């Protein structure tokens, strides 16, 4: 087989590497752990290998594209550029880690085939979003992600889970409809909307600018729901009823990132950052993102539930990406892009740890966390790395993001960005440091709310312990080795160079 043929099949193979195992997992008998685990891990490892090929191809600058006509004039395009590689790699790596975690987490609970089936579909939809080469493909996978996530949020089957899932669905489907209208409208104006570096709309006459602003509002409303921009964020705290692996992967990475990634795509590869700036769209986006950053942090301060606090923290942190996209200039772009990865690995660490506290000790609230550091030192160490990274303490990944965002604000003359970042950092410290203080320095209670002993020599089951430790190490590496080749920062710089034609 020639290299060209491989290049044209690679994107579709990456989507199928989780889609097909997912379909088979539905058919696996509930008690057949072995087959299900093999299918899960096989898909995850195969996907990683394919992504490795993809990174290599994009690095060399080869065109990698699959085109499938679903109807005359409507084409499903899966292609890979530097930006998609960033998101694909993030989701594929974290999928493998989360699959291990989920296998441990869900042991002995019912409906595992259903869970892992939909879990695989979610990841397929996420990489589909990452690889979407035009707007209709993006819309299709964006909706698929909504549908595949719904059963996972509802998974526990309690009335609260059903309620949370329905709220999630109401928000995301309404957003999806607005996105759809925006996409159709744009398609009517200019024909097929292929994502192109530098945007595709700059040649349109000024008389159309009114329509372009309206379309941007529709697209942003649709994407803002998943990216949890205030006031469209209401579903995120509600869907924390989902099992921990779902909160970790989907609500830290896949779903919210799909929204943020979409905003980045629309700003850079549909409108083009120059045109978006001229139309005043960047200013509006920056305002919305800044407000969300501060609001999410303030809300997080008030939460006693650990997952709820993390959820509001997500609301705040994901908007850093939108903030980066809203500032004109390559430095801010680097900050936003790199945060796409950094926020993902830091937040997934925190959610894994929250799941471990709940499963091992029955601890769900911040006020119950006194002394957990001594009972579960490795988990708490991982949690500490994630939390300090979120605050932006060097040398953890989050520092790099904030540094570039701040620098980007200064170089584009928008000094207020520094204020937003400073306020957010103070608030981050305000809601994370008390947790760390309780965990490490307060005495442990005589009895934990609901303690499980897994019979291992570690503090909890191995499948639960190692995933957060691994992701915490990744957070450190991403910060320490930020200028090594193929680091997230290096890759974000590559994207910024290509977008600005440097």
């Amino acid at each position, binding site marked *: 087989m020639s290299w060209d043929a491989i290049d044209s099949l690679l994107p579709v193979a990456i989507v199928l590497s989780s889609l097909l195992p997912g379909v088979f997992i539905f058919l696996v008998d509930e008690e057949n752990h072995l087959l299900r685990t093999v299918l899960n891990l096989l898909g995850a490892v195969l996907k990683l290998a394919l992504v490795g090929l993809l990174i290599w191809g994009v690095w060399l600058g080869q065109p990698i594209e699959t085109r499938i006509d*679903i109807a005359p004039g409507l084409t499903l395009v899966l292609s890979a550029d530097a930006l998609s590689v960033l998101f694909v790699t993030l989701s594929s790596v974290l999928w493998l880690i989360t699959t291990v975690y989920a296998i441990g987490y869900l042991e002995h609970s019912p409906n595992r085939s259903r869970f892992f089936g939909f879990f695989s579909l979610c990841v397929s939809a996420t990489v589909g979003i990452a690889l979407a080469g035009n707007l209709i493909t993006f819309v*299709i996978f964006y909706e698929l992600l909504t549908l595949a996530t719904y059963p996972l949020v509802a998974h526990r089957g309690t009335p609260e889970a059903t309620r949370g899932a329905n709220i999630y669905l109401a928000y995301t489907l309404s957003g999806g409809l607005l996105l759809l209208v925006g996409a159709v409208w744009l398609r009517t104006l200019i024909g097929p909307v292929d994502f192109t570096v530098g945007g595709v709309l700059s040649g349109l006459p000024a008389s159309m600018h009114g329509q372009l602003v309206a379309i941007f509002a529709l697209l942003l409303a649709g994407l803002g729901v998943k990216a949890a921009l205030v006031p469209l964020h209401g579903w995120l705290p509600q869907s924390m009823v989902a099992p921990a692996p779902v909160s970790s992967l989907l609500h830290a990475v896949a779903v919210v990132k799909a929204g943020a990634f979409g905003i980045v795509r629309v700003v850079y590869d549909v409108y083009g950052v120059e045109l978006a700036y001229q139309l005043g769209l960047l200013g509006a986006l920056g305002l919305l993102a800044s407000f969300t950053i501060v609001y999410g942090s303030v809300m997080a301060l008030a939460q006693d539930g650990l997952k709820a606090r993390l959820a509001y923290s997500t609301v705040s942190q994901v908007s850093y990406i939108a903030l980066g996209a809203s500032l004109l200039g390559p430095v801010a772009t680097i900050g936003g892009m790199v945060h796409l990865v950094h926020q993902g690995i830091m937040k997934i660490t925190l959610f894994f740890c929250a799941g471990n506290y709940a499963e091992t000790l029955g601890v769900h609230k911040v006020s119950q966390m006194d002394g957990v550091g001594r009972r579960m030192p490795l988990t708490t160490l991982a949690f500490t790395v994630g939390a300090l990274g979120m605050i932006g303490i060097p040398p953890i990944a989050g520092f790099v993001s904030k540094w570039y965002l701040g620098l980007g604000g200064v170089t584009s003359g928008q000094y207020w960005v520094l204020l937003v970042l400073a306020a957010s950092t103070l608030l981050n410290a305000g809601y994370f440091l008390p947790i760390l203080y309780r965990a490490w320095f307060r005495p442990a209670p005589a009895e934990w709310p609901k303690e499980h002993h897994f019979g291992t020599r570690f503090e909890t089951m191995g499948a639960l312990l190692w995933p957060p430790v691994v992701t915490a190490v990744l957070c450190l590496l991403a910060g320490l080795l930020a200028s090594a080749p193929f680091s997230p920062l290096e890759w974000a710089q590559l994207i910024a160079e290509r977008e600005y034609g440097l």
Partner: protein
Amino acid sequence: MPEPAMTAPLVLCIVLPLLGALFATALPGRAVAVGIVTALVTAAAAVALTLAVWEQGTLHLVLGGWEPALAIALRADGIATALVLMANLVALGISVYASGYFQDAIRIRSFWPLWLLLWAALNGLFLAGDLFNLYVMLELLGISAAALGALTGNREAIAANLRYLLVGLLGSITYLLGVAFLYTAHGSLDIGILAAAIAANEQLFAVDAAAMTLMISGLALKAALFPLHFWLPPAHANAPAPVSAALSALVVKAAFYLILRLWLDVFAPVTGMAAAMLLALLGSAAVLWGSWRALRAARLKLLAAYSTVAQIGYLFLFLPLLVATPEGPARDNLLAALLLMAVTHGFAKAGFFLAAGLVQTNAGHDRIDELGGTAQRLPATTFAIALAGSALIGLPPSGSFIGKWLLMQQAIATGQWWWVVVILAGTALAAAYVFRVLSRAFGLEPTPLRFITDPRAEVPALVLALVSVAVLGLASGPLWTLLGLSGADA
């Protein structure tokens, strides 16, 4: 004159189920076997017909050797063939499902002859080339459908289907009156000849317009266009599940097909924006009202029936856009999208009703609020409802997603943006009523160890639903080819 081998499927599609109906009546003890064999060969004939039209384009056949003006003419163009293929594949699925559905001998003996008769009438209607022949098939279809619908045997079913029968008769008589007008004015019943005569005689505009009004109103009653939909929900909701599937997916579609045929072929010179707007306005009301009632429905099958009212409404939204769009790729896309929506709804709604029937037999009722446990006991069936449901909503990938995309695109392009608002509202309501059902499937009740528990009942529903999503949603290009449309980038 085309090759007999090419036109043979045209005749076979109608004759085979008719023969099957005769055999099923003559051999009541073997009705199921006769039915299944007939279903297989008829579906094969439909596939052969599709291949013939795919290669040759439109097929014509005149029976009985009379002059074309009066003869029984059969005709298969792209639109008819697309619907025949959909109807026969769906009918095959329904037949497999029905072979296990009916348990007592009396029902089995009544179901198969009537069902095969309905099938023959359906194919006859799609393939008829003259207006009187169409009328005969329409009557046959209405009577066999009402008889089938009453097979449940309870009071509500009989009352609902008696009303269905009378409404159907009223509809076909109104249609026949219009046909009489046309015959008096132009002296022919052949669709092609009439179309030419109507285009040529502009002084007969008033007669033609009156005939059109009569014929389309009669058919709108049969197609259950709002506000003439009142008979549909009770009739479809109370019929046995395979019959509900056939009524909702196919029979209503046949009436719509006739409206479309008249609109495009016969009355093209008479139709105008005013008539199209009126029909689309009624269609919008159907979309909103039908979806709203589906959301409020207490029972699963009633929900599905109201959803049919809404889905038929979408098809009427295309008419003003067809009028406003000049010949060319954009109009081609629009026409193909219309057919795609109709065909997708056929597969999806049949799958939905078959699955709902299984839920009903399993639970002993179909009250949505109490279905949690059953939905979880039957994962494959719930999955079929989910797939069919996403096609009804118009979520990607499904044929109706592409259909709605092209519909909205053309609505924006022609400046008729208000239909976009209707589509959005209808889609949101559809999502609400589908997920009202699906949200019951994730409760705390125990679930079985296996995905599929009853293959003969679950596989047809699953396959039909899957076609509406995966096949029509990911590879709808062949439909354009079958319709003979180019549909380049619009």
